[in-house]
């Protein structure tokens, strides 16, 4: 696979004190990889988007049919091993394909879960027999899969779950309720986390047809109405002994490592709709006339386009840099259960940073895009209203952004204590300087940790965008410079929150509103 033309030699958190000479940028995807991405985009535009309204009504069979169609084209197992019916391609390419299959939120989450976290635990931790039994069905799109961790009383605090498993008469017997389970209505398999004997968190492969397994009614949601979200109810559910995944008491490794990669993938699922919202809103702005001219002529509208482009550019740069690093980690260590665990864990801080960056960029972009539509944006006349609703949950699932913020800086701090990361360096940008200085004030206070996390994720985004702009120049450089203006202000605020000290901002870069807005108004993918 020709994804990476060089070895970046980045390790988890190494970005913090060492900017690599260069990194993977989305432009590095090879010609035929881009052809795959093009197929994904066409599938979204021709097969999924025209059905958006009917999908939202959950018309019978519509969504499962789409998943099967996607499966026939090979989309449901892009990064699943080819030994088990997948294509065996990299996670980075899988994420790029996912980005373009995410133009409709409901399809995105259905596809994202069945092609992602429903298979990942199995791929990383399954035995040969388990993988051979389940993966081919999921990778072909013939079956839909689900992932069941959350419960009514344990969301963020997932390990406090009360679902339990007991060995009885040569079977596992599971009891409990799993809450908000995506794909519940359609899934044939559920990766269920439960505590053996009420204490040891373990992972189980549960089939829909096993005795004692049932699915409750659909939740009424504010968005993603076309996706299925429902409770999975386990009442003396009987699961064969061989369906325990990984070791007893090590279910948290399965759950959390699937989530690391899941967060990386969610970043792609968040950027897809954001990218399309930018394009759609520019097209609307060209057509809509007020005061005798297209609204795309107005400075405040153009400023929105420039801001959206800068933000998208920076987060996109970060996303595919992490993906290439993850692929490298799997190439180096993957293959054994222990190696897979290590590879999935290595870039956990970067994955969390991405999750927060991408979902908050998505929120800002779809919000500003909707603003461009004025009153029409608030009605169902255009797809932007749906995109806006569908985007809201991104900041909630796969670990709320608060949970990711609590985790991020703390994890970096702990890595530094273990000698696997460096704090207190000089930094090579305004943002990274502040980040290093602020770590002197590290404490367990959540507000401090949250502020430090902001500094860490801004450092990652600024650096990734800088490396890409160095390679591409032109508009990319402008988008980078505009992003830096914004990131510096955010960083200054976070620094003041952490330290209480005043900050002087550096001289801002030129805003580049006109060239960025003009490029967006003329090209679908200007950069």
């Amino acid at each position: 696979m020709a994804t990476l033309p060089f070895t970046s030699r980045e390790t988890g958190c190494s970005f913090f004190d060492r900017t690599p000479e260069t990194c993977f940028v989305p432009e590095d995807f090879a010609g035929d990889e881009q052809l795959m991405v093009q197929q994904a985009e066409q599938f979204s535009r021709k097969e999924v988007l025209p059905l958006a309204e009917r999908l939202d009504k959950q018309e019978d069979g519509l969504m499962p049919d789409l998943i099967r169609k996607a499966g026939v084209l090979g989309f449901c197992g892009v990064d699943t091993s080819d030994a088990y019916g997948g294509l065996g391609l990299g996670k980075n390419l899988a994420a790029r394909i996912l980005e373009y299959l995410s133009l409709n939120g409901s399809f995105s989450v259905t596809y994202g879960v069945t092609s992602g976290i429903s298979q990942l635990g199995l791929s990383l931790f399954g035995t040969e027999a388990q993988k051979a039994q389940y993966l081919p069905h999921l990778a072909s799109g013939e079956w839909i899969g689900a992932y069941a961790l959350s419960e009514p009383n344990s969301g963020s605090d997932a390990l406090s779950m009360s679902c339990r498993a007991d060995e009885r008469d040569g079977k596992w017997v599971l009891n409990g309720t799993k809450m908000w389970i995506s794909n519940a209505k359609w899934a044939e398999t559920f990766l269920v986390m439960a505590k053996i004997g009420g204490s040891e968190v373990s992972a189980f492969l549960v089939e829909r047809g096993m005795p004692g397994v049932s699915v409750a009614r659909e939740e009424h949601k504010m968005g993603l109405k076309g996706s299925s979200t429902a409770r999975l109810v386990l009442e003396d559910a009987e699961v064969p002994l061989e369906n325990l995944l990984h070791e007893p008491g090590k279910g948290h490794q399965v759950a959390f490592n699937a989530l690391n990669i899941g967060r990386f993938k969610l970043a792609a699922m968040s950027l897809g709709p954001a990218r399309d919202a930018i394009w759609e809103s520019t097209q609307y702005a060209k057509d809509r006339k007020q005061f005798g001219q297209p609204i795309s002529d107005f400075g405040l509208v153009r400023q929105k386009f420039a801001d959206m482009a800068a933000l998208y550019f920076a987060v996109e740069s970060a996303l595919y840099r992490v993906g290439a690093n993850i692929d490298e980690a799997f190439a180096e260590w993957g293959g054994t259960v222990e190696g897979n665990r290590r590879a999935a864990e290595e870039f956990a801080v970067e994955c969390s940073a991405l999750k927060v960056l991408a979902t908050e960029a998505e929120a800002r972009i779809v919000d500003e895009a909707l603003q461009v539509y004025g009153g029409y944006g608030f009605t169902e006349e255009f797809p932007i209203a749906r995109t806006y609703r569908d985007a809201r949950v991104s900041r909630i699932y796969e670990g709320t952004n608060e949970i990711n913020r609590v985790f991020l800086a703390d994890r970096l701090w702990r890595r530094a204590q273990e000698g696997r990361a460096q704090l207190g360096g000089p930094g090579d940008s305004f943002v990274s300087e502040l980040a290093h200085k602020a770590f002197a004030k590290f404490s367990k206070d959540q507000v401090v940790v949250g502020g430090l996390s902001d500094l860490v994720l801004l450092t990652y985004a600024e650096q990734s965008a800088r490396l890409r702009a160095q390679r591409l120049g032109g508009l990319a450089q402008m988008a980078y410079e505009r992003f830096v203006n914004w990131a510096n202000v955010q960083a200054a605020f976070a620094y003041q929150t952490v330290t209480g000290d005043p900050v002087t901002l550096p001289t801002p870069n030129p805003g580049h509103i006109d060239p960025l807005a003009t490029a967006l108004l003329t090209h679908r993918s200007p950069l």
Partner: protein
Amino acid sequence: MKILVPVKRVVDPYAKVKPLPDGSGLDVAGVKFDVNPFDEIAVEEAVRMKEADPSVHVTVVSVGTSESEEQLRKALAMGADEAVLVETGDPMDSGVVAAELEAVVRQVQPDLVLMGKQATDDDNNQAGQMLAARLGWPQATFACKIARAGDHIEVTRETDAGEETLRLALPCVVTTDLRLNEPRYIALPGIIKARSKPLAKQARATDARPKSRVTTMAAPPPRAAGRKVASVDELIGALRERGSL
């Protein structure tokens, strides 16, 4: 049956391109390229014929720079069996392309050449007709339906007067119109498989030179703003004034 499908690398038909400031050509920096959509339809048709009859063998050919390999790989991913790239950076017009294709036809010996009626970059609509003339083969242009009938093929073509169906003896040249089919999504495994399908690169076989030359390229002048009139009478008056009535 052997089918030869020529494919051309063209600027993505949906990209907005501008002429270079000196008018010598187009500014294609950063612009995406794709298979000429008419050629893609030809590839699709050939692959469908192959699916209906596994003995059909589909070769795709492109005359152009080494970058055309990307378009040939796409055709292979759609299901073509092998590819030939006549590698050249020479300036070409339809006549040169037809001369080169003639040489490839003599080499591959297809029963049918299936090609786009025109390329979306310069819209010449000539290469197919010129190739048929050079070979002395029957031709059917603007095909909207193709059916095999024993050792003949039947081609339905769209004309101003309506649909016309021709029966052609093989070998022959058929050029495709947009309505012939809708090209498939390319399954990802097909794209992976295409990586290992044979693609032969060869030099030009003729010394044909273009008989036409692009002297300058310029963007069309921007449309002047319209004018509003208050009544039909005023409109008629204004049209008279312009000499349009």
